């Protein structure tokens, strides 16, 4: 009985934390991104930006999709980070998906 109570407290605490942080996905158009070399550079640098969760690339359309925790970063910060390594990124779309757990 006691363990059940403890477990339910832990779960509710965990749940409440995840409920606060929202995962956001932003698609950037990076005009001067050409080929695998650029992809590598972006990967290596943006992966270590705070809050970034996942990165996917569409090299034919010059698109970078960044999934991030919007409590830790935002699209402007990501744009600045891309600019710092020489890439001009314009935001195409972004959508917030509140995590359901």
């Amino acid at each position: 009985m006691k363990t059940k109570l403890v477990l339910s407290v832990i779960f509710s605490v965990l749940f409440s934390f995840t409920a606060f942080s929202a995962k956001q996905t932003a698609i950037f158009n990076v005009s001067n991104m050409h080929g695998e070399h650029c992809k590598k550079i972006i990967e290596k640098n943006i992966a270590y930006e705070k809050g970034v969760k996942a990165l996917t690339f569409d090299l034919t359309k010059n698109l970078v999709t960044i999934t991030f925790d919007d409590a830790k970063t935002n699209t402007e910060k990501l744009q600045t980070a891309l600019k710092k390594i020489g890439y001009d990124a314009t935001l195409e779309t972004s959508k917030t998906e509140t995590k359901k757990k």
Partner: protein
Amino acid sequence: MKAIIINITLLFSLFTLQSQIKGRVADINNQPLAGANILWLNTQIGAVADADGYFTIPASNNHNTLIITYVGYVSDTVTVTNRDEFYNIVLRDNLTLGEVSIERARLSTLKSRQAIVQTEKINSEELFKAACCNLSESFETNPSVDVSYSDAATGAKQIKLLGLSGSYVQMMTENIPNLRGIASVFGLGYIPGSWMESIQISKGTASVINGYEAITGQINVEYKKPDGDQIVHLNAFGSDAGRVETNANAAININSRLTTGVFLHYSDEFIKLDQNNDNFMDMPMIRQYNFANRWKFHSNKYEFQAFVRALSERRMGGQIDGDYHIGIDTKRYEFFVKNGFLINAEKGESMGLIISGSIHNQDAEYGHRKYEGNQDNLYANLIYATSFGEMHKLTTGASINFDKYAELLTIHTSENFPRKELAAGTFAEYTFNYNDKFIALAGARIDENSLYGTLFTPRLHLKYNASEHFQLRASVGRGFRSPNILAENNNLLASNRILNIDSNLKMEESWNYGISFLSHIDIFNRDLTISGEYYHTQFVNQVIADMDSDPHAVHFQNLDGQSYSRNAQIEANMEVLTGLTITAAHRIMDVKTTIAGVLRQKPLTSRYKSLITATYQTPLKKWQFDFTAQFNGGGRLPDPDAENPLWEKTFKPYTVLNAQITKNFKTWSVYGGSENITNFVQANAIIDVTNPNSGNFDASLVWGPLHGRKFYVGLRWSLDKY
């Protein structure tokens, strides 16, 4: 009517010929990059940006990728989809940014779709999977190349390609033949892992440009480039087998045209390792100092590269308690210079002059047997390349190679083996390219060898791209090689076998035939790569080391009868789940030689090998997990004494497992792992180990691992231009 049609086609083709791609090259601040080079990828057809950064380049029917390069800036590629579009290309400065990439593809071992000769590339990412230590360990995750110890005493490793000894592979560094003769014994240990940028393995007959050697294939090592992405790289490694290793490289931009790279390596194996308690070191203690410096100068029409290297190595092994000692001291000095002149960029006309040389000194003792070897080498190759339209390319030139050997062998009495060999030759290689659909590469060379006379070496490669997803290749060619009995069989000195060397040994000569396919299959948007190949190497003449007729001797003699190696291999590679890439390969080998009148399986050669590698990378590549399993088939040993057999006739299949975990941070990474997890070790690797001075003593009958489970950790740090 017919004439009109011809006229129209002519007009049309003229029109397409005249069509131009226009664009401009600038930096991120929109400043023009005057003098930037724009080339169609994998061709010499190009243009140079003018003072305002503008360029025009003739459109190509066969190519659609432009590569734009400018010294001090990161090269970039652009896919040309629309000829009327104006291409604004922005190159990023090397210095303002943070990080790197060397390889351009997703899968880290590549079967090249572009190369005409069947080529596998091991890039820097793949090299990281085998954490330690030098070239010999770099093939652990490659299914084509086998690496094994050549004896149980010196720690020397040898490779096998297509089931045949590494001496039939032409080793090259930066596309120049290297590590030949005496250096071939321990040569795989002379190239530290962190010096290498990539390795290319091509199987079957090779191009004629680099000489008549290369019987089963070529392995080329590219060192890190001074104008590459890496500025500083540091690496430290330690293992529970008592090996420490440190490497440091730096690349320095003197100015926009001149760069230099410095490479340092120190390694030390300082433990007298004897896991099987036979009072004989499993591995010798090895200490190596290795230094290299390279330079690169580059202007629009001329490129110059120079490289020097000095190496000193000492190996000490043998009995821990006793009077049988093994000591091998090596000093090696190397240089090369390369000059490239671009004569006409549009025609792809260029001239190259390569000069290289080395001095190699080896002073070895194996108990009472002593070997002193000295080899001086000088090599020059002049290459002229041009093209006639987009379909025809011609490469021609001349080369000379000079080797001077001075070898002194002491077994009871001393004997000198001096040898001078000069080979001068001329070659031509013609490439026919029909729309990248069908490519033929036909080459031939004629050499005059001071010891063996005139050598004619024809070679042919064909490639057919049936579709973007399916390619076929075929090759046939002849190869020659001068035998270097003492140097290449140094491992036999770690035995008390009597050496009988016939005096009339001929040059080795062979034909190699190969066919292969490469297919890409799309499965739920993932690329499954399947490749298959069959190679047959047939010797016309070979120097046979007969260890079967007498268990206490080895007899070197000319082949009398058949000798061949047949290899069939199939390989599949796929990213099966996001981040998880699996490669599986299986190879069957049939290697037979006529020994004492009987066609027999070559001893110490496995009949098959399977390899499975799995790599998992977390989505942001912060963690990487690598796993390798090698399944090696059984084979036979040289015949033991019939009445008093001291070893088995055959050896059984065995498995070797390796695993590694890497954690990447932005500028550094830390890795740890284990080799030979199942702890499988060949038993009875040294025959009569307690009596190294007896006639039975033999450390050369090695077919499996000599070293048990090993744990290691390492650290890499690099400062990159981006």
